[in-house]
């Protein structure tokens, strides 16, 4: 299954190089107070609540961020956007930054529309 393969790739690296691998299983969404404005190089993201402004430096990270709402996990978003696995640590670091600045929020713990089987498989991986 694709999820376990990607996790294995990252988990086989040294821990210090991939501190954000725990984010792979996270379910995230863009805060509705964020305005994402496309630019040729990627996008500008402005949070109307915090007044923080971020520069997304690649159309690929923009695509991933936009994809998160419709994805059950970060892994799924990365795969849907065909991001090559050697790039995943940088994408996770970027996602971590966006979580820290309040642009990305965890999806609520209430049972979502996600298939129970997928959720169980993810839980197996993290145990």
């Amino acid at each position: 299954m694709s999820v376990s393969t990607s996790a294995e790739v990252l988990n086989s690296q040294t821990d210090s190089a991939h501190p954000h691998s725990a984010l792979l299983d996270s379910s995230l969404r863009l805060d509705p107070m964020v305005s994402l404005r496309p630019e040729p190089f990627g996008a500008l993201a402005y949070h109307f609540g915090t007044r923080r402004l971020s520069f997304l430096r690649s159309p690929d990270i923009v695509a991933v961020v936009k994809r998160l709402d419709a994805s059950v996990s970060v892994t799924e978003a990365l795969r849907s956007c065909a991001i090559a696995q050697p790039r995943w640590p940088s994408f996770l670091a970027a996602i971590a930054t966006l979580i820290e600045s309040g642009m990305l929020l965890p999806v609520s713990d209430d049972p979502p529309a996600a298939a129970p089987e997928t959720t169980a498989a993810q839980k197996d991986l993290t145990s």
Partner: protein
Amino acid sequence: MSIDTSTLDSSSEELTASPEIEASGDELVIDELLVEEISIDGMCGVY
């Protein structure tokens, strides 16, 4: 997404150019700065 290797440069001093590939063992990792934060107050030409 495929990686264009036609411009491979094996100089070990080149830390300032585009995404770096670090080889650790047999795996390659590409290091990119994808998100940069700037201050909405930090641009000259507004009050």
